[in-house]
């Protein structure tokens, strides 16, 4: 059994948060599916609410402080990422976006990502495909086909909607697990180790 590292970034603001709840259920579905692949998974959850000031500082100073590094590093070195945001004003929240704004440019390149979002009504659900998926496309992450939106009605709308949400979560977690299981464990690139020979730079490389 090889160990996989799953990072979960959640941008909910309240406690308890339906965003965190969705994130936890997506993480559980993924680890269950990886378990079926015979792979153990370590999950690290980053609650962005705890880093709100650190993220604002990073925007101004240009570097993550020691506290924020504790949140950024596990994401950058993870084998896969689950990212869940509440819908604010027709898109991801500013806090959610800020986290991905301060990551290194290539930090998520090639990383399997499962996206989730929460909102008051299902009318917001296309935010996942119109806002969140393009963000990860830009970051050259590999997003799984199923992105999961959970509206208030999914949590409290009775058995049928609850079952439908559970099914979407199961399917999405399975897709992420399939991607992760098919890949070798991640070794993060080190720009200070893997430096280009200067002759290459001189020759226009």
């Amino acid at each position, binding site marked *: 059994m090889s160990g996989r590292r799953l990072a979960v970034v959640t941008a909910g603001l309240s406690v308890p948060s339906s965003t965190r709840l969705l994130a936890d259920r997506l993480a559980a579905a993924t680890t269950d599916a990886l378990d079926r692949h015979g792979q153990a998974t370590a999950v690290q959850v980053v609650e962005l609410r705890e880093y709100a000031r650190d993220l604002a*500082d990073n925007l101004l100073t240009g*570097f993550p402080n020691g506290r924020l590094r504790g949140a950024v590093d596990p994401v950058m070195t993870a084998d896969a990422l689950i990212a869940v945001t509440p819908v604010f004003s027709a898109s991801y929240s500013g806090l959610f976006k800020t986290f991905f704004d301060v990551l290194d440019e290539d930090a998520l390149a090639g990383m399997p990502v499962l996206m989730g979002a929460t909102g008051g009504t299902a009318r917001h659900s296309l935010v996942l495909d119109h806002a969140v998926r393009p963000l990860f496309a830009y970051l050259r992450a590999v997003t799984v086909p199923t992105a999961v939106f959970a509206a208030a009605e999914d949590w409290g709308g009775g058995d049928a909607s609850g079952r439908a949400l559970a099914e979407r979560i199961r399917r999405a977690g399975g897709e992420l697990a399939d991607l992760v299981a098919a890949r070798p464990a991640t070794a993060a690139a080190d720009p*200070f180790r893997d430096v280009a020979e200067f002759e290459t*730079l*001189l020759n226009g490389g």
Partner: protein
Amino acid sequence: MQFGVFSVSDLTVDPTTGRAPSEAERIKAIVTIATKAEEVGLDVFALGEHHNPPFVSSSPTTTLAHIAARTTRLQLSTATTLITTNDPVRIAEDYAMLQHLADGRVDLMLGRGNTGPVYPWFGKDIRDGIPLAVENYALLRRLWDDDVVDWSGRFRTPLQGFTSTPRPLDGVPPFVWHGSIRTPQIAEQAAYYGDGFFHNNIFWPKEHTARMVELYRRRFEHHGHGAADQAIVGLGGQVFMRRNSQDAVREFRPYFDDAPVYGHGPSLEEYSRETPLTVGSPQQVIERTLGFREYVGDYQRQLFLVDHAGLPLRTVLEQLDLLGEEVLPVLRREFAALRPAHVPDAPTHAARVAARGGSRDATVRAAADDVTDQARHSETEVRVR
């Protein structure tokens, strides 16, 4: 080891008075700060180059030449000279000229500049930042090292049989530092040429500075210029001092909170923890600064930023007094005691001339001069030195 100050020449409103100096005041203040730096025993004054408000130093060689005339010992440098947007031909000419006027007390620090709009003002594109730094410096080296240069590259018109004048003083060009906060390719460039590497050491945590310097040292050795611990390293640093550390914190806080780069973000205490910023007593500055060598190794040049964020000139001069009287003597003694014998001292013109086997007149003479038609017939009369 050399100690000094560097200025970015910002024209910032003093947040405690609401007053900003005029350009005229700030330019004169920079000269006053530089001459004071020599007076208090510092070794180096380095000046930035910027082409947009709120900065005044668009033409550092003009200012440095003026300072050279008013000082006798001070080493003049830059922080930084824009290797991307300046024509390398002009850098070669301007700094060789300055080198002659300052009797060799000149080196320079090259940087890319990080302000997007500046590049197109000079016909360049910020996306070419690294290729420009690489090509322009390769040309600058040729212009200083070779009397006659044939050149073609991507970024400027070709040169045929070009001689950059004046030739470097004594045939030894100014020493070059390459400054970069976060670009491994620039550390590699410095290492490739065996030049110095300077890390600003102000805006980022020490762990980051350590990685950049370690990369430079490792590659310096790889490129055959000596052992890694013999590479030439310079560091910046930001300090504000009062004899009583609480007074320093109280007085500097409004300047910190409003500072152009990091203001309105982390608190002074957080920033002091995360970066090498030291606000406190001279003893605290001494201890923090001595600690730098623990993460970059023995190094050759320490420059402090003391005149930014709207601090009034009087306060800056008091900072220089404290540096000279209380900090400098201890740092000189302690760093010297800690440095092993095989680690080189900071480069100076005199030492580099000696290493080349002594001074020589590097003047290149034209076979004939179309303007005066003199050279061919009266070469002895136009001898320069």
